[in-house]
């Protein structure tokens, strides 16, 4: 089964190789992202899951080249479509944004400039990377709004953002992000601020557009349900590191890392008989105070002396599956999670 998943994967679009970020403070250097390596393949949806503060957003900002000034980004490679992002000038990087890679954020309510109409903002985006007339841009913009399933697009083009609901605005943001057909779309918690019913619509829309536009999506979320819904491949992050990587099918069928299992157990299940929800004890360790050995050991119910002693490597333990745990084989045996 796992073999089969492996062979189906497509051409690599984004290659992240040993990404590290550093924050210099007065007395020491903190490392919010540590040795993160992964690939996003063409037309694939990669879900990145983890609790707040695990380095998900920092990873995506590093790819976009939008990290705050006090943060240093280092990587062996950050290759997007064969271009080394770390070696690009400010200007070249800016030209990549929108055209090759785009990003949508959590807050659709504030992601649009309140002073301009939807049409203006969308056509400006199109004209940014394309030599087209205003009229052509306008027509393409209407087309985009149709693609993101906005009713009466001609009418919405003339509206100001305050006239639209959160779901509608997120659709507009998706239209803006996809307007120049980027090959990679990074979506940072795109549905967190929306109603549950709207969430599903937006996720479905993104998945559909991904196929239509042949775009790869990096979906950052803390919600395993969202991942199960739309992701093809999943990266589980904890305290700045990748702790598990697998296809969505494998991951939910058999989570190998105790943290992944913990996350799954702390989601509500329909047939749950117990009153109390399982939780993972404790909190994500602070950057300034990382435990020795495995970073998850203080919260791990299965931690041993060996776990506290040495940091486990991220090892490919089964074909197409990587896990950062020395005891995965003893623990990952029984089936867990959703079917």
């Amino acid at each position, binding site marked *: 089964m796992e073999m089969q998943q492996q062979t189906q994967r497509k051409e690599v679009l984004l290659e992240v190789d040993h990404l590290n970020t550093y924050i210099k403070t007065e007395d020491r250097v903190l490392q919010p992202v540590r040795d993160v390596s992964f690939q996003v393949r063409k037309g694939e949806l990669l879900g990145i899951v983890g609790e707040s503060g695990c380095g998900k957003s920092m990873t995506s900002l590093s790819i976009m080249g939008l990290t705050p000034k006090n943060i240093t980004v280092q990587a062996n490679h950050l290759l997007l479509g064969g271009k080394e992002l770390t070696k690009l000038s400010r200007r070249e990087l800016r030209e990549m944004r929108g055209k090759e890679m*785009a990003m949508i954020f959590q807050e659709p309510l504030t992601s*649009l400039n309140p*002073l301009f109409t939807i049409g203006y903002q969308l056509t400006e985006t199109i004209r940014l990377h394309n030599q087209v007339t205003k009229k052509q841009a306008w027509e393409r913009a209407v087309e985009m709004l149709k693609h993101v399933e906005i009713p009466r697009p001609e009418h919405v083009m003339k509206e100001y953002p305050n006239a639209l609901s959160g779901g509608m605005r997120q659709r507009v943001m998706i239209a803006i992000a996809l307007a120049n057909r980027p090959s990679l779309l990074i979506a940072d918690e795109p549905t967190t601020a929306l109603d549950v019913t709207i969430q599903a619509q937006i996720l479905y829309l993104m998945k559909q557009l991904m196929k239509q536009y042949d775009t790869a999506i990096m979906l950052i979320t803390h919600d395993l349900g969202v991942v199960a819904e739309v992701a093809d491949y999943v990266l589980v992050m904890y305290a700045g590191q990748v702790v598990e990587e697998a296809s969505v099918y494998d991951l939910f069928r058999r989570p190998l890392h105790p943290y992944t299992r913990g996350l799954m157990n702390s989601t509500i299940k329909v047939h749950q008989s117990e009153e109390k929800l399982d939780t993972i004890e404790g909190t994500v360790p602070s950057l300034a105070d990382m435990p020795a050995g495995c970073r998850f050991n203080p919260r791990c119910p299965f931690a041993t002396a060996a776990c506290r002693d040495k940091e486990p490597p991220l090892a490919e333990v089964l074909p197409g599956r990587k896990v950062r745990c020395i005891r995965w084989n003893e623990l990952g045996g029984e089936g867990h999670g959703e079917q």
Partner: protein
Amino acid sequence: MKKNDKSSLAAAAAAGPKRHRAPRWLRMLWRSKTGLIGFVIVTVVLVFAVFAPWIAPYDPNAINPVDMLKPPAFMEGGDMRYLLGTDNLGHDIFSRIVYGARISMLIGVCSVVVAGFIGTLFGLLAGYYGGILDAIIMRITDAFHAIPRTLLALVAVSVVSGGSVTTLIVVIGITGWITYARLIRSEVLSLKEREFVKAAITIGTPDRTIILRHILPNVFSSFIVVSTLAVATSILAESSLSFLGLGINPPNISWGGMLSTGRNYLATNWWVATMPGIALTLTVLGIMFLGNWLRDLLDPYNQGLQ
């Protein structure tokens, strides 16, 4: 319309589509009494400034030795020909106040344009780019801040051996830019973190476009409010300089200069100094009222309410 607005508001709402409704700014103006007062005063002063030759009954510089130091018309011994009396050279004070509005408004508005332009430019640069540029610009504003503005203007005017309207505009403008630089910088700092600016960055918008399209229009309302108040401050600054003899020179007429003349006659002929003083006070007050009202009008939190 005036009565209509309050009494039939509910009726109008019930009637559905807005018919014959005054624009929002007018309705808000009517509701705010101080705003209305400010609006009226500023309008009157502007009309004085623009149409001075048609409004003023006399040539403001016509010397009339026969009618020196006449009291205002409403006082005993007053002359109906001179509404607000005459000064020591027999100038009609009302005519001079009307002409004085020209200088006050001209210098007030133009120096604010100068200050606003310089301040906005530096504020945008400091706020958007941050780092060393920000540090330098902010230290310069600190340095400016440490010296009282009037003193700075005084020194500047004496250095360029002042007197001309242009000199005053430039000097008052240059000494006033720091308010803008600081205000705009702080607004930019918060706008920069707003999602729509970040979203614009992620689709590859160049810095120039982000500053001009996404940031500048969003600082506009604070800019307008501060500018209004700055006009009042500039008018006061001009009057102070003219009062001290370093501002507008005769034959140009300035309220500050009139005050300065009147000072010598305060004990015997109080109106010579008091009339331009009242004009100055009312104008500044009017502009302040208008500024406060504008702030309410442009406040986005107020947009939803009527």
